[in-house]
């Protein structure tokens, strides 16, 4: 009992320690504040948005006006409400897809790093082959074949972005394996599974955490790109799909800035917030020698 409680305490105090260092960095704080705003919008968008995102509320492709500050789209739906609702899908999808990628990447990375020669080499060759494939083309082809549900898009994004993660994890595991505490565990007869779970994983966790956060922007951008290409889920509102309708209804030629700037800026801001948090978390969790 005692050890469980103390371990839980260690975990909490570990997070507090992390936060203490993290909050000293203004960039990281900016990221947290932006992310908090987006979370707020995602949770309260039914209250915040003036209209139902799917309802026709005005004229077709109307310019911005006090009633529709971002104008309306080709079906007369309010763009402002649609941008607010788009936050949900980007957040959920970005985080889930990143989680899938991190899971696959970590599993393959740890396995190939730990089993070094032989099967490890083969796994890494496999990863390298995936790295060679042009990601966007792969996503397009998978999404076009598998269908347009949001769950499939999550899978597609998750399945295409894992190789980089696997590489990062592998190189760390390779160096961890040489450390004395692993040698000690081997010499007292610990099994592979025990060593990986108790000695290797806890030590790659900081690296994984930082990289997982940095994977999220990539997942968000991928989703919006797929939606933009017309392979997104047609039943959900996403920033990418707003941008597609702007593009297809020649918002560029007509100079309808209010239609395609807000959703794009939203993508950029959300991604910047994750990127900032990720970079600062990386600096805190994986300190390197500084000049």
């Amino acid at each position, binding site marked *: 009992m005692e050890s469980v409680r103390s371990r839980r305490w260690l975990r909490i105090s570990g997070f507090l320690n992390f936060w203490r260092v993290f909050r000293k960095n203004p960039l990281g704080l900016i990221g947290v504040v932006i992310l908090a705003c987006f979370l707020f919008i995602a949770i309260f968008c039914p209250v915040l948005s003036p209209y139902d995102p799917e309802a026709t509320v005005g004229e077709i492709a109307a310019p911005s006006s006090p009633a529709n500050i971002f104008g309306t789209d080709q079906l007369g739906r309010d763009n402002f409400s649609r941008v607010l609702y788009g936050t949900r899908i980007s957040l959920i999808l970005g985080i889930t897809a990143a989680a899938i990628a991190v899971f696959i990447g970590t599993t393959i990375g740890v396995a190939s790093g730990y089993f070094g020669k032989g099967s490890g080499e083969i796994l890494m060759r496999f990863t390298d082959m995936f790295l060679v494939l042009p990601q966007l*083309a792969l996503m397009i*082809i998978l999404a076009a*074949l598998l269908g347009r549900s949001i769950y499939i898009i999550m899978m597609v994004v998750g399945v295409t972005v894992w190789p980089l993660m696997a590489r990062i994890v592998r190189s760390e595991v390779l160096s961890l394996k040489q450390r004395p505490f692993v040698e000690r565990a081997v010499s007292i007869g610990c099994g592979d599974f025990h060593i990986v779970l108790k000695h290797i994983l806890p030590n790659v966790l900081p690296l994984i955490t930082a990289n997982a956060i940095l994977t999220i922007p990539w997942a968000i951008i991928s989703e919006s790109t797929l939606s933009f290409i017309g392979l997104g889920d047609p039943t959900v509102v996403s920033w990418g799909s707003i941008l597609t309708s*702007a*593009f297809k209804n020649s918002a560029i030629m007509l100079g309808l800035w209010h239609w*395609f700037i807000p959703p794009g800026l939203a*993508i950029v801001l959300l991604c*910047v917030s994750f990127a900032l948090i990720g970079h600062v978390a990386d600096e805190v969790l994986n300190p390197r020698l500084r*000049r």
Partner: protein
Amino acid sequence: MNMRKYVIRRFIDSIGTLFFITVFNFFLFRLMPGDPIALMIRTRRFTQSMVARFEQIYGLDKPMWQQFFMYIKNLLTFDLGLSFAYQTEAGPLILEKVGNSILLLVTAIILALTIGTLLGLLAGWFHGKPIDLSLIGTSLFFYCMPTFWIAMVFAASFAGILPISGMRTLTLYNASWFVRLLDLVKHIMLPTIVITILYIGEMLILARNEVSNILTQDYINTARAKGLRPRQIIFRHVLRNASLPLVSMGGISFAFLVGGSIQAEIIFSWPGVGRLMYNAALARDYTVLQGCFYVLSLTVLIVNFLTDIAYKYLDPRVEY
């Protein structure tokens, strides 16, 4: 390991990857629920001869392993099958677009490498100074922008100043070569800038980290101590050593660059493989999709092979 041995090993490796891509492509289409090809033949109105052609290409009535060997044979002879949407052979349809895409990609990669390295050098030299931080901040910002959105913003901003669609002005078809070249340059400007912006950030950060790392090395102190000018240090010691990771990075992120060019081609209606792929995805034209994917993967594979060899040439110490 000498150069020839290295090239051979890498070549065998590339063939292995090519085989993987091929197998992947094959099963992607066979294991789909509901057999898309059979479905396609049934739902679209095809003439009897076209159905016969389909059966000849895909061997749908034969067992799986025979289908696989037919598939490999077809790919090697670049027989990619019939396009559902265009109702013609997919191979020539894709091949005639490849040149246009490569023109765009090569222009962008040269620009991005040069500008990215120079800016990275600047940031690394002034490590931690305001100029460094602002460069890093800007590139982070660009890194977080979806390419197609940057392209939209550029297209809307430059509409009327530069052509924002296509590759050449049709009315100039019998003008002098100089006028036509100028026209092409004008058309290629915006898509290249967009792809370059996407790529510069990554190059910049890599070059910057590399340069600031090199600047802490002892041989730089030696160079300084013996009174070399900053310009001499940069060209003789820093750039030489920083070029290696940049070359290998250039190869690795080429696949990423292809993704950017697909999006730029869509927005600027550039008649390349990416745009073809977009149209094929919209029309659910699976054969053309598959063909485009195959051609793009092949391109990335070749570029990676060439960069590895360049790397070995620059740094003979590298082992397989």
